[in-house]
């Protein structure tokens, strides 16, 4: 029915142009996600390439359960982490990949000084969070993934993602400042 479905059918039937069309549709999104883990452009490029090469390699036995774009995202994240890990091994560092993203604000909606201050506040607050917390906030509120998908993607329990979001936003509340009173556990925090 959808154009996307026909692309995947085309790949299963070994049409290279279907793979290329899928690549053109998703490479920017995957690359952008990857660059939030590392500034190493070439490593991210490799991960994008490996994602599509392995998709082609296993096209006959593809099992896509929960949406095609999610399948690509998950496959990409796995490839990226494998590459990051092998690089870490060769350079004898054991740093975990850190997820960072930069916030922008639509100047048509909020203008001038208020915008600058708010943006700075949010950015500073985000830096204080853990990498996992930042990634969950990004995936949930900017990419629109469900908590089930986030848990699947990050190899966590669904409950764990809820808790991490809640804690992340609790931390944000402290950092955004100004609120008084008790913090209600789990979801209802004073922003």
């Amino acid at each position, binding site marked *: 029915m959808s154009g996307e479905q026909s692309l995947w059918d085309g790949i299963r039937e070994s049409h*290279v*142009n279907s793979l290329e069309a899928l690549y*053109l549709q998703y490479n920017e999104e995957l690359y952008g996600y990857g660059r939030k883990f590392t500034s190493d452009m070439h490593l991210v490029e490799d991960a994008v390439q490996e994602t*599509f090469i392995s998709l082609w390699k296993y096209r006959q036995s593809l099992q896509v359960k929960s949406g095609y774009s999610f399948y690509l995202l998950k496959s990409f994240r796995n490839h990226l982490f494998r590459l990051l890990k092998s690089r870490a091994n060769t350079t004898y560092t054991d740093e975990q990949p850190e997820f960072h993203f*930069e916030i922008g604000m639509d100047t048509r909606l909020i203008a001038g000084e208020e915008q600058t201050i708010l943006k700075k506040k949010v950015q500073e607050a985000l830096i204080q969070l853990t990498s996992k917390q930042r990634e969950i906030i990004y995936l949930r509120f900017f990419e629109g993934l469900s908590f089930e998908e986030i848990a699947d993607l990050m190899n966590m329990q669904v409950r764990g993602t809820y808790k991490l979001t809640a804690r992340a936003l609790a931390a944000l509340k402290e950092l955004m400042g100004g609120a008084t009173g008790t913090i*209600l556990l789990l979801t*209802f925090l004073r*922003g």
Partner: protein
Amino acid sequence: MNHSIHHYSNYTSQQLATSPYFLEWVKFPDAANTAFWQSFVTAYPDKAAEVDAALTIVRSLYVVHERPTPLQQREMWDEIYNNIGNNKLYARKSPLVYMARAAVAVGVIAAASWLIFRPGNKEVNITSNFGEIKTVYLPDSTEVTLNGHSVISYRKEWANREVWIEGEAFFNVKKNVDQQFDVHSNGVDVHVLGTSFNIRNRRGVTAVVLNTGKLMVAASAEKKLILSQPGDMARYDREHNNLVQKKVPVSKVTGWQQHKLQLDQTPVADFFGVLEDDWGYQIQATDSSLLNKTISGEIEMTDKEVLMNALAVILDAKVTQQGSTIIVTPN
């Protein structure tokens, strides 16, 4: 879980904007959370301004993305292509092999195994999803902005500046006096040297509107029109093989690039057609006389909620949603 609206009674807009339940509502509205925040505003009417401000903050936030350059994208694809093309095992299963054999039969050399993939890979297709506006750079660095649910195709080797369009696109053609630029769309050919223009083909009708420069629209050897003034429009109806020239405000046909829909005495039926063709919204009117009305104005197409509110106001109707269908019931 304590689920009371009263917890939010002292919240400022910034605090609301970083509350999970508020974020969930803005980003993923459903009946339950909408009712919750409505009752909050009803109970604390003096907080309505804070809620509005918080909404603005949340909606204005976006993430800055690192994008691969067009060159990077092409290089990554070449790398992918070389890696899958060398895989003979899979090449044998490919139906493209038949095309390769035919090529050999007519005396074309196909020595290396990667060549087998060439015939199937001649065309590049770039697609936008419903509601997605996408900018594409062609090999000659011509800039093309695709409206939602549209496709642009061209031959990979790019021997001629020649593309095919389904749906709607705005072209900013790179100037090159030596090489003509051709756009094919539903029975119409557009020949240009360097110009910007909009082209839309939906439901058997192709409309080309000139922005700057000069171009020729041809439906056949005899049926041709030259567009030379901004706002000149060539409209081709394939079924009736009818090519006519009109004049329209340029902004009316290019507003979609700013996520805006411009309506100028537009029949409601046509407006619904656009929402279906470009955005994938199925719209049902409970009273068909509504479809004959005409409307004017500008609609921000930022999200579905805004659209539904705008529909309710413009059409003086109740607008509800059932699955993917938007139902319009005139008041």
